[in-house]
């Protein structure tokens, strides 16, 4: 008993006062991308390098000349291949871990209109929820469903329960049954074999409910996009049979997202205009 107490004193208090204090992330961490506007000419290097097709040609070239493509964070696995491939340095990855958004189209990152690549990027302003989630402000219980994930997103959700993050102090908790839950948190590209179990779990979640999708796989299929065994995450699942009332409330991009990104996403539901 005395040894346990002694060890307890050694292990100290380790919970970070998030979001007041910012987490210290690795300088090599690739966070929210920022794009500079460059003229691409015939160069296709980034398109060829990107393993998930996350780069979309910029449709709005004002003078008809090819410019920096749009980056879809919903598909991006943050591997940095585009940054390495671009001869003009159009792609940068900041250390910003806050990346969650409420609408699919908000995951598209365009080049800053200002062509001065050297100008410091303006501070990132996270978006406000388009709907009122105040019902879940003090208590949000989530059921996690892993549908073909590799286990990394699941691990980074699980870790939120540890004392470094201490999810419980925000009134947020992962619960054992959809019957106890206010919503689902989905990871994985939705394998064929998990499709039915996912829809059953959704149907078992009482209304009002919300749906958070975490990770590139769950948003778009990620690396497993276009595998015949997967449904391309919510991108592919929406509009198919039995998914009429499936509405995504929160998107957290990443492969896997940093735990702080997931925590920021869950907390952003209580952000007020």
């Amino acid at each position, binding site marked *: 008993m005395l040894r*346990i107490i002694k060890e*307890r004193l050694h*292990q100290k208090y380790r919970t970070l006062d998030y979001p007041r204090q910012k987490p210290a992330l690795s300088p090599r961490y690739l966070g929210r991308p920022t794009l500079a506007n460059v003229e691409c000419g015939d160069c296709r290097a980034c398109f060829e390098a990107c*393993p998930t097709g996350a780069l979309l040609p910029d449709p709005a070239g004002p003078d008809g000349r090819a410019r920096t493509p749009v980056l879809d964070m919903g598909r991006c696995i943050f591997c940095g291949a585009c940054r390495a491939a671009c001869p003009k340095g159009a792609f940068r990855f900041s250390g910003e871990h806050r990346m969650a958004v409420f609408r699919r189209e908000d995951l598209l990152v365009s080049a800053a209109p200002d062509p001065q690549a050297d100008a410091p990027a303006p501070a990132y302003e996270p978006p406000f929820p388009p709907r009122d989630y105040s019902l879940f402000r003090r208590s949000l219980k989530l059921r*996690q469903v*892993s549908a073909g994930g590799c286990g990394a997103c699941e691990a980074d959700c699980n870790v939120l329960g540890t004392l470094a993050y201490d999810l419980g102090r925000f009134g947020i908790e992962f619960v054992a049954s959809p019957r106890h839950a206010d919503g689902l948190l989905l990871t994985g590209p939705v394998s064929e*074999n998990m499709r039915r*179990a996912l829809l059953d779990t959704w149907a078992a979640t009482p209304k009002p409910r919300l749906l958070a999708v975490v990770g590139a796989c769950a948003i778009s299929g990620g690396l*497993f996009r276009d595998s015949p065994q997967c449904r391309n995450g919510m991108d592919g699942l929406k509009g198919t049979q039995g998914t009429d009332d499936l509405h995504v409330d929160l998107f957290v991009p990443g492969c896997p997202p940093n*735990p702080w990104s997931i925590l920021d996403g869950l907390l952003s539901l209580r952000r007020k205009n």
Partner: protein
Amino acid sequence: MFSFDYRQPADMDSLPLLDAAELRRRVIRAVDGGWRMLAFFGLPETARPGAPAGLCCVLAHDATRTLAALRTPPLEQFPSLTPDCPQAHYFEREMYEQWGLEPVGHPWLKPVRRAPDAEGDGESAAYPFYRADGDEVHEVAVGPVHAGIIEPGHFRFQCYGENVLHLEIALGYQHRGLEAMLAAASAYGPAQTTARRLLLLECAAGDSSVAHATAHCVLWERLTGQDVPERAWLLRRVGLELERLANHCGDLGAIAGDTGFLPTSSWNGRIRGDFLNMTASVCGNRFGRGLLRYGGTAHDLCPEECEDLTTRLRAAGRDARGAVDIMLDAASVRDRLNGTGALNRADARALGLVGVAARACGLPLDARFHAPVSDLPGTEPCLEQSGDVLARALVRSREMDDSLALVEADLSRLAARTGARTAATPPAPPSRLPARKLAVAQVEGWRGEICHLAVTDAEGELLACKIVDPSFHNWPGLALAMRNGQISDFPLCNKSFNLSYCGHDL
């Protein structure tokens, strides 16, 4: 039997074509003589989809660091090895499902990766679960969606009171078609093929990214004869051992949690994160994604970074040691773990278990020792004899010390060689592979031996790219460990194996 050094690719043309009965006879004799089945799979004749396939079996003799390969011409049926060689049981089920080769006489021919309630295919009859009959026997079904944050799988217990007569584990929910995607990667053009395969394998099992990436790089390097600088080996091992530390630490915390010993449970959750964050300091990603490249690594460390990592490693190592010792010294914990979920050595060997689960039964299987990937000074397997949850916890606890020492030594060697940051400029990936070769890579991930295997055809195209995660060998071990145990022992038993669903399902 055609045998070769484990580091050398074998020439496919020197492998004699055997008939299935002869292959069966030779494999069973070899396994009786101390060889071990690394992989047993369908080998198509050509790279064309739907080409007729024959059998190919790769065996390892750990004491002499020798591999052996056997193959047959294309066939549709073969006499099952399983009745005389239980190691083959899971491979033969996979063979039937994946290549349509029927093992005649297989006692338990069920799907491996088709989920019990999967939709869509014509034969979606109910999964043939084994049932124990009797008035007082009841059945407990769990999953695929579990109570915790964990991957999906289905467990079916046949219980008599609290006692588990039989546990059947039905997986496949995580099946993403990984091997098919590896084969299809060449369609993305030469610039992407190698990079894409590596990215996919980093996601084979997300908690073993570095181990699977190492196995893939080693496989390709052996196929093409590519040399890897020592500095890259040091960096790769730092990644691999940090992965082991993080997961062993987390597993011991999870065992503490299911024992009800909460101090270690909560501390280890945090310390696991410290190890993951060290990996992030090396390559930016907590799971080691993007650390490796064909022929080297994508990142390097300067002396200051090595020093910073060493300081953090010592602090986390001290915290982990303290937290785990408190737990393992508590009489109540020892009592709960002792004798729970015990497997004996003969069963472990017959089933072909690997990794922590095998070493806990006294089997000296550690690929770092019997199939080292580099010339760096290595390690000895940590063995326990009792085969129970306690043994699996003790193996992890001792391996943490080994890994801490290895990482610290590697970091000091990396720091000593200033200015030589050549590891981060790996060579260009090969534009084509040599023709008609079979290469094998064995890497000891934290869970156990990961085996990757590739066979090329006359044009250097991939005929087979086989991934065998340690979970593939070990899931049947968990089912056996539960037999005649209490159903309340299952969470603890499960945590002590901590097997991967996606690594199995691929």
